[in-house]
């Protein structure tokens, strides 16, 4: 980021939530970069930016789409880059229809299931698609790893003149044609001057000589179409040639110390280490089917070696028990039967389908959406284990949670047995953190943990030991996976397993042959024959030569700017991914100023300031072996080596479940009609039907709901606290800095509602009501949207009710409903409808009455607003889409509405 000439921070409050990483934004600024903050609020990030562009929360695709449209219409895109490295010229299937044709839906939508069949989004190939290769579950996000479903290796058709109406670039032009500065003004509340400033800043700071960088965080992901917000930025960055180059990219800012690490070696239900997908029951019964679903051996790029990665993982986990005969113990892996995310699990708890629950470093009673539902769900468990530093609210809800106060739950009626086990914190144990930039950094133990507190590693190893002891001698085949695990970590005198031995297993090692026992130095050494094992293929090399490369700490002053000897970045200690794109098609740097990795013709290899992200001796004009899969199949300009066509995807033919291109949908609880389509909200969003859950009350401008809940609030963090507060509200030094929950409102809204500065306000959503101190500030600005004024309220979500922490307050997440992005199963928490009024909230049963009274006046119940398709018959269409004659939806949507 320090190398960027312009940084757009959008969907993130980087200075507050990522202050350490923000030093590089400040460094870029000191070097002369322009910093622009696009955000509903003026925050500590904005205070250090050159420009604030206030935006209506949830309208980001309109803005980014308009920027895409602007650079396409004005021909400001980076032609050489786009031509060489993206799929702009690729021809798309004839059956593909755009939201511009279908009033907000892509082709392939099935109103019955609420899912898309992505077959019509595919690249056009010479032969018609073979139905036997169709992937049944491509419509479900949880079935794909990082690469998305594979593309068959068939010669794709391209029009290098970019004129074919079915080529990606032309589809892109049509798709975003109505995303204009005027539309931005109407939908986002951004003036045409501010839009022009933003567009100019990006255009002037892109190209051969300069680069622009985007940074986002949960301000983009926590929407019902969050993945598409990020895709929109990726399209813009590809068009401007800002990927794989210094100072470019779309930076995903991670909000905890090793959240990146916990997706690499995942704590996610749908992934295995190294972004391999979790196998699906029924579809991946055979190992070959599973491996084929990740990447076929004939496809280009590095997912063609999926089998190798999977075999090495299984071999690392099950050692000698993983043999070619039993498909490397593939059947030991559990199978998915659907999405098993945190919210699905919680709903299953409510239905009594879950007996036990381990909570490690999570505080769902405070940190997850619809807190009341979370706590009610836990009251259906038989037992739960909370491992934390402090007695967090997820451990105390049964005796002093809000439902105890309101009388909804009584302690004596709750059968859940809660075990609290104290945990060591990060200074009390050794291990690694993987941060935003994929840098794996080792930390050493500073002090021993107090009392009975132990590390996660010790806890889990011990738990495994005890379970295995209990099962010893079992002949039940279902116990084999546990009994056959390699579970032999050396234990020190304090009972702590050696964390470096785990790192060594993750890195991988030779199982047999002359080098048996030696650590691998790169994933290229992995073999699919059982002679090597490695727990996470992208981490291969972190323990090269038996040295903990993550523990390297050569100071930056003693190195060049790449600082390759500070810690270790996956994969292969590479600091910028896809850095082949930092050179042009001929392998020459785009400019002296942005020189990074280039082709050295004399030595016949790629070289530069970083580890080249490309087969190192493949010439720029190498055609690639059309018969071979994997790296050999890549051409010399296939810079995006993980993609099965080697190109950066402007149009995503697979991998996303809600469309190949980002399209604007309104947030579920928006009261603004979608200005672009009759389809109001994302039709694939995941919601849950329950009488307890007011999931999707859908105050989308219908009925009186918008009058009862006339405002929207957005949630966020402040620097002084950490997420649900487990690491901050229990510490006096942090608690005193932000002692009370507050809401941020504009002077205009305070005037309308009658709020006193630093007095109390009650905020009522369709699910709950909370109270907060009032911070009236001009940092909140009302926005003119579609002829009316939209007032946004800001609510940090760190507080909770309970007597254990130093400070307490209401939990903001109690207000939020369960509407998830179908790609990621992440909840919308950035746009929720609410009412606000002066004074404190009622106590006891009166609180529920206040919430119910609002629901009655709004006329909403658990069934309203959950219809997924909102396109009326052609005669009643509100939005005129100037596409081809609109095809009627496959089913009469009025039926949906009546349901």
């Amino acid at each position, binding site marked *: 980021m320090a190398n960027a000439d312009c940084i757009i921070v959008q969907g993130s409050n980087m200075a507050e939530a990522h202050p350490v990483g923000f030093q590089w934004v400040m460094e870029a600024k000191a070097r002369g970069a322009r910093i622009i903050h696009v955000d509903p609020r003026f925050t500590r990030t*904005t205070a250090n930016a050159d420009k604030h562009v206030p935006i209506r929360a949830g309208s980001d695709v309109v803005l980014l789409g308009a920027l895409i449209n602007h650079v396409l219409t004005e021909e400001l895109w980076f032609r050489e880059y786009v031509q060489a490295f993206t799929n702009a010229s690729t021809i798309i299937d004839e059956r593909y229809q755009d939201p511009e044709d279908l009033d907000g839906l892509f082709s392939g939508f099935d109103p019955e299931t609420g899912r898309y069949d992505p077959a019509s989004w595919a690249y056009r190939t010479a032969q018609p698609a073979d139905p036997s290769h169709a992937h049944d579950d491509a419509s479900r996000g949880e079935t794909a790893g990082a690469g998305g479903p594979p593309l068959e290796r068939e010669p794709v058709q391209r029009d290098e003149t970019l004129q074919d109406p079915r080529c990606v670039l032309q589809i892109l032009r049509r798709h975003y044609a109505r995303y204009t500065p005027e539309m931005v003004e109407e939908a986002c509340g951004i003036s045409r001057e501010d839009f022009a400033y933003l567009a100019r800043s990006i255009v002037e700071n892109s190209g051969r000589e300069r680069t622009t960088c985007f940074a986002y965080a949960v301000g983009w992901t926590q929407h019902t179409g969050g993945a598409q917000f990020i895709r929109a930025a990726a399209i813009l960055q590809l068009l401007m040639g800002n990927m794989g180059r210094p100072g470019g990219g779309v930076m995903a800012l991670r909000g905890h110390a090793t959240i990146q690490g916990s997706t690499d070696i995942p704590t996610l239900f749908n992934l295995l280490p190294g972004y391999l997908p979790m196998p699906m029951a029924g579809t991946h019964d055979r190992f070959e089917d599973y491996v084929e679903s990740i990447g076929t051996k004939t496809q280009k790029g590095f997912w063609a070696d999926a089998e190798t990665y999977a075999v090495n993982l299984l071999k690392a986990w099950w050692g000698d028990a993983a043999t070619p005969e039993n498909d490397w113990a593939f059947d030991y892996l559990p199978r998915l039967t659907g999405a098993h995310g945190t919210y699905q699990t919680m709903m299953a708890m409510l239905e009594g389908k879950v007996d036990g629950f381990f909570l490690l470093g999570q505080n769902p009673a405070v940190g997850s959406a619809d807190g009341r539902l979370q706590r009610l769900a836990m009251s259906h468990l038989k037992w739960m284990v909370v491992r934390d530093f402090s007695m967090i609210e997820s451990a105390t809800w049964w005796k002093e949670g809000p439902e105890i106060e309101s009388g909804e739950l009584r302690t004596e009626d709750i059968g859940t047995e809660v075990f609290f086990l104290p945990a060591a914190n990060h200074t009390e144990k050794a291990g690694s953190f993987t941060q935003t930039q994929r840098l794996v950094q080792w930390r050493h133990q500073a002090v021993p943990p107090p009392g009975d507190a132990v590390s996660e590693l010790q806890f889990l190893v011990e738990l495994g030991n005890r379970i295995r002891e209990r099962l010893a001698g079992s002949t039940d085949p279902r116990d084999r996976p546990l009994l056959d695990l390699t579970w032999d970590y050396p234990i020190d005198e304090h009972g702590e397993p050696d964390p470096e031995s785990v790192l060594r297993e993750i890195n991988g090692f030779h199982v047999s042959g002359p080098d048996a026992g030696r650590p691998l130095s790169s994933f290229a050494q992995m073999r699919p024959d059982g002679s090597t094992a490695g727990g996470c293929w992208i981490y291969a090399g972190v323990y090269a030569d038996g040295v903990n490369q993550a523990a390297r700490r050569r100071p930056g002053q003693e190195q060049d700017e790449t600082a390759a000897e500070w810690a270790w970045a996956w994969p292969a200690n590479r600091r910028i991914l896809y850095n082949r794109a930092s050179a042009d098609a001929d392998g020459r740097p785009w400019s002296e100023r942005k020189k990074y990795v280039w082709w050295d013709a004399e030595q016949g290899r790629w070289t530069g300031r970083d580890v080249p992200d490309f087969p190192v001796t493949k010439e720029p004009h190498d055609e690639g072996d059309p018969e071979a899969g994997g790296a050999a199949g890549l051409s010399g300009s296939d810079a995006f080596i993980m993609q099965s066509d080697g190109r950066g995807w402007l149009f995503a033919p697979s991998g996303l479940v809600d469309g190949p291109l980002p399209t604007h949908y309104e947030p579920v609880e928006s009261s603004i009609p979608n200005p672009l389509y009759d389809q109001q909200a994302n039709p694939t969003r995941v919601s849950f039907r329950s009488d307890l859950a007011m999931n999707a009350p859908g105050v989308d401008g219908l009925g009186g709901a918008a009058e009862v809940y006339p405002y929207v609030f957005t949630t966020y963090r402040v620097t*002084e606290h950490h997420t649900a507060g487990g690491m901050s509200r229990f510490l006096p030094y942090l608690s005193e800095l932000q002692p009370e929950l507050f809401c941020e409102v504009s002077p205009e809204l305070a005037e309308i509602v009658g709020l006193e500065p630093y007095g109390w306000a009650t905020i009522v959503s369709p699910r709950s009501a909370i109270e907060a101190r009032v911070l009236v500030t001009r940092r909140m600005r009302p926005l003119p949207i579609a002829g009316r004024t939209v007032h946004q309220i800001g609510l940090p979500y760190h507080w909770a009710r309970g007597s254990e922490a*130093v400070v307490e307050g209401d939990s903001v997440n109690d207000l939020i409903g369960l509407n998830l992005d179908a790609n990621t199963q992440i909840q919308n928490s950035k746009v929720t409808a609410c009412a606000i009024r002066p004074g404190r909230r009622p106590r006891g049963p009166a609180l529920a009455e206040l919430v119910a009274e609002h629901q009655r006046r709004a006329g909403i119940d658990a069934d309203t607003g959950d219809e997924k398709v909102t396109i009326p018959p052609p005669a009643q269409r509100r939005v005129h889409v100037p596409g081809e004659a609109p095809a009627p939806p496959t089913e009469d949507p009025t039926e949906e509405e009546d349901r």
Partner: protein
Amino acid sequence: MGLPSEHEDTGAGAGWGHSHERKGFFTDTSICIGCKACEVACKEWNRNPQDGDLEILGSSYDNTGSLGANTWRHVAFIEQDQERIEQARESGRRLVGLGMPGIGPRSGADAPAGAGGCGSGCGSRPGADGEPGAADRTPPDTPEFRWLMSSDVCKHCTRAGCLDVCPTGALMRTEFGTVVVQSDICNGCGTCVGGCPFGVIERRDDGTISAKGDRGRVEQDVPHHGTANKCTLCYDRLVDGQTPACAQTCPTTSIRFGDRADMVDEAASRVRQLHDRGMTEARLYGANGNDGVGGTGSVFLLLDEPEVYGLPPDPQVPTAQLPAMFRTAGIAAAGMIAATALAFLGGRR
């Protein structure tokens, strides 16, 4: 090199018999992100107790309020509208017009601020002017709104009021030119509290600290209660060659630590750099050796008048007027003696 009165009161002049360089902070508020890490790191290192009653203070994001016995770094948050920004820009421009006291004499060889010269401060940018890497020199549009953040700290004055008025000798000048309370000598009389023109030093009452939770009730022994307390510029870290805790933790180098003379140089060139970019609201605070405290060990770059940040515009050490006061008192005493003598003489008649 040094301020006019520096050697009288600091470093070698303070009777240490050796000459350490005088140490100080440069707090560049133009790059402060208001994270308050300095406040926390300071409290952690110095084991200072929790402050306040855990209620929202009513001052933007500031819930600390001011420096005091328990808080030795304090981050102020100031929300300003366009009119105020324009005033700040204008008043800063006037300071330059007047030669900007505190910068001029020390950097005579450099081009004057605002005259197009970049000075040494621009050297950190890659690429010479004219290359794409060079900074945008056009003055920024005056934003409609801004949010100032600034981390305040003890000034470690060249002529320190607290030290001057301390009757027990508990306050001392260290070999680094900083001012430190020796709590084992301090008797808690509180004279220094009134002696500080910045309102920094304060007497610590019998506070207690307790973090609740299952990790055991962490009762912190409150050190030094009943005595005067303030920033020591991490004296205990300096003697080990370490950086003070606040500067060490600051993620954006808004707080810098080093030889005081270097800090003043860095601050001055940073002001010139900002003026070159049209940000004429930037100005120095505490670098002027001719001010009422002889300049401060902690210098600041501010983006508005000092009063806006709660800093006195013209701090005066209370003992500054001591000779004049003694003179006046002497004249008065002489007059009274004369009058008395006269009365006796008259009475004898």
